[in-house]
């Protein structure tokens, strides 16, 4: 399956009550989907390939992978 079709079906949901804005997820995201803004973590979603690196690395259980079929 071509890569473009895989992209866009995944997104990262952020639980802001648990997120501590540490940037651990940003450092491991190979597609630069996550971005640590001045106020809080932001997710652009469009390039997410569903690798789960951010979810594994998060110290706080603040991230969840959403998958739309």
């Amino acid at each position: 399956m071509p890569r473009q079709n895989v992209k866009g079906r995944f997104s990262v949901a952020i639980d802001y009550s648990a997120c501590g804005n540490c940037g651990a997820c940003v450092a491991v995201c190979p597609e630069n989907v996550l971005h640590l803004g001045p106020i809080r973590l932001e997710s652009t979603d469009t390039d997410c390939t569903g690798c789960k690196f951010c979810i594994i690395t998060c110290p706080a259980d603040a991230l969840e992978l959403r998958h739309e079929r």
Partner: protein
Amino acid sequence: MKDSYDVIVVGAGPAGSTAARFAAAEGARTLLLEKHPAIGYPLCCAEAISTTGLTRVVDPDPRWINCKIEHVHLYGPNDSHAEIYHPDAGYMLERKIFDRALAEHAADAGADIRVGHDVVSLIEGKNGYEGVIARIDGHERKLHAKVIIAADGIESQVAVAAGMKATLKPSQVHSAYQYLIGSPEIAPETLEFHIGTQVAPGGYIWLFAKGGSLANVGIGVCPTKTPKKKAVRYLDEFVARRFRRFAIIERMTGGVPTYIPELPLHKKNLLLAGDAARVIDSFSGAGIANALLSGKLAGQTAAAMAGGESDGKAYQSAFYQIKEKELNFYRRCRQLFLKLNDKDMETILRFVDDLFSGRTIEAVNPMEIVRKILLSYPRLMTLGRHLLF
């Protein structure tokens, strides 16, 4: 407000503020940018620093020193325990005040500082970068400079913009969580480290006394060793075991990078410093001392570059001349540590206990270490071999 400088520094943590201070002190027109509305917050830091790591760059100031560190206690599997006394080991910092003081030093040296400036990209020119684009209250603004220093942390957006982000694998990051705790059950001027595959997989728990009845209690784990159970769960279990009475005053999460030898510290007229450069002690996760030193050298080099002398390579060699061996050694320590089982950790702690028991660190001589290993701890030879290549 001016929009053209010799040196722009992105990020006002220890690396950035130090870089701005030294660039300005060398006469460069310097601007320090911080994306948050305040310098010194939020933090992801356990706040301990060695005496040499601090005093090499900054003179200690009682305004931001919580206390000295004199005692180190190590706790391992099967109740193994070792104690090291080192009267000059280091300091516990109050980072919120420390970071502001470093920015104050930069301002005193003549640097301009602007908070609430989120640098989102670089202005590319023919021979390098001509400046940065910062977002301020929803507006974008171009700021020009001859040299740019990226000190914007583990999440460095400048490194991403320059196409030199070292994307870390989850196994190359410590996943960390910390509480500031108030409790009467904290030994003064003491650092506690707790290790064990069940306690903190691929990492350790720390308890650093901050003076009074306060302490930073935190954990760093290797996320691939525990993909489902999060750092915060291990920490909660530890706190419940360790304290009868406690109150949590602050909580913070942390991502601690490990050192990546292949990553260059410069590209054209862009220099990386601190966590953005991944110059971290990969074993302990300590980063303040390397941030200060890389910031100082980056600032001095940037000032020279703005005057048409020196280049990014000079910065990298100056830093590596002092730090490369150490960074590589700690990197190997971490690789070895990740392989240890509980029995190995217990052996190491019993050895350390045997070696130091109640003595200061200077009282131990190298021959004694070798003799003890050969006679009583042969397993350590097999493990130690991995550190010496």
